[in-house]
């Protein structure tokens, strides 16, 4: 459903992604693994329109997204959950979630969406009237995920969900991501370490802005030497 072809993107004169192609099928969970600074976040930003690609094409279900603005890409159903959460600090949990449903199509269904999100993250229901800045790191990550789920997503793109969290919370989070995927939503996740590649159906290895390998999660796990080479 999501198809990226020959994507080039970067900042100013320095190109970060060089002719990158990947695809995510309907209902599939895909992980792009790569070390810090090799272009994972740039890839997601280029797909979601925060960064304009210099060349190449991004398609969703056959429609090109390349010339759309960020808000139109969201409307098309590509939802990007950014690194570092970027919650709205001076708004309550409830208001943050509502902003995830800002697009009018999602806004009309906000009541059902609330139920889904609160079912996945009961802690958010408990904290619903608290300001987002008063949440713990793990709760913020859940809020960022929940906010993304409030929209009408066809595919969810998640940037390093484990960054800076305690191990126990990380485990819970990946469980939830798996659950979200099993409910039918496609997922494109970028990650720095290979600890959780089992949530994915397929894995790409990204190095210096180029995808160097692709395979199923099981294949990758069997090839531990390879993972070790790329990710230290």
């Amino acid at each position, binding site marked *: 459903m999501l198809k990226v072809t020959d994507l080039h993107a970067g900042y100013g004169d320095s190109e970060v992604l060089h002719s990158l192609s990947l695809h995510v099928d309907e209902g599939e969970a895909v992980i792009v693994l790569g070390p810090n600074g090799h272009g994972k976040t740039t890839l997601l930003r280029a797909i*979601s*329109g*925060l960064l304009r690609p210099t060349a190449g094409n991004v398609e969703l279900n056959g429609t090109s997204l390349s010339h759309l*603005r*960020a*808000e139109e890409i*969201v*409307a098309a159903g590509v*939802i*990007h*959950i*950014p690194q570092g959460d*970027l*919650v*709205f*600090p*001076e*708004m309550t949990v409830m*208001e943050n979630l*509502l*902003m*995830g449903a*800002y*697009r009018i199509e999602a*806004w009309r269904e906000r009541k059902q969406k609330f139920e889904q999100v609160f079912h996945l993250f009961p802690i958010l229901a408990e904290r619903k009237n608290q300001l987002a800045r008063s949440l713990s790191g793990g709760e913020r990550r859940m809020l960022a995920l929940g*906010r993304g789920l409030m*929209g009408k997503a066809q595919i969810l793109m998640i940037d390093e969900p484990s960054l800076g969290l305690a191990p126990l919370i990380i485990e819970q989070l990946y469980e939830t991501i798996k659950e979200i995927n099993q409910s039918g939503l496609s997922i494109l996740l970028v990650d720095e370490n290979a600890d959780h590649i089992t949530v994915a159906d397929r894995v790409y290895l990204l190095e210096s802005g180029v995808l160097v390998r692709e395979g199923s999660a099981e294949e990758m796990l069997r090839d531990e030497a390879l993972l070790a080479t790329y990710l230290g």
Partner: protein
Amino acid sequence: MEKLAEAIYGGLLSGSVLGLMALGLTLIWGSLRMLNLAHGSLYLVGGYVAWTLINWYDLPIWPAFVVGVVAAALVGLVLQITLINPILGKPGWDNASLIATVGASIALESIVLLIFGARVKQMPVALEGQFTLGTISKANQGLLIIVAALLSLFLLSAFLRRSRHGMAIRAVSQQTDAALLMGIPTRQIFLIVMVVSAALAGLAGVLLSSIFYLTPTAGFNPMIKALVVTIFGGLGSIKGTIWAAYIIGLLEAFLIVYMGSSWALPGLFLFMIVMLVIRPNGLFGLGEMQRL
């Protein structure tokens, strides 16, 4: 005792008007990070349009007031589309937006001067009569201004808290990237902010020009005072701005009543300087971090 009542009433009155002016400035600062120096001209637009309709076209006062406010909002819309949007998000935004808004204010003031001349105009009062408060007697118009301002402040904060677009304004000002990722069209939101803010300035112009005179430079003083209020309240903070408006309004009124009106502006600036030394981030000490 009479002096005290006089000062408190005067403070509430000028605090209300300052609040209207300052909230517009703070909304724009909070979301666009722009100091809108054309804000005083929007005050003029409101005042002069209403005055013209009443005196040249014999329109009744209330509809003329409404049209004045709408006209200011429209001018804000046009300014945003023609002047601000082209430089939005380009390098040098801070300076470019300052120069663009100063330019717009000079142009608008000159237009007013060309059409109406420099002679002062006075708006008729919307509410005749007096009311007495203990031993002092005051014009009903003043009461109208206070009520209208409080009502607008209340409506605005309800809009920002409860409505989809109001929340989006706060979201954009707190975390622009995330707002984009939620599918919030930031440019459209900026347009809404500008229109609301211009309408507030227009409303201040309409209400105040029955107390103060209308001249082509009449928007300057309210804008400067509103600027003091927004800085005092912590730029970009709604709650801070409303508190600051009434504190500064009261301070000004007390200065006028007890020390003479020539002390009002110097006193305010002195206060602001001291304030900036003690609390550089404004009344609530939230500063840069605190947005709408």
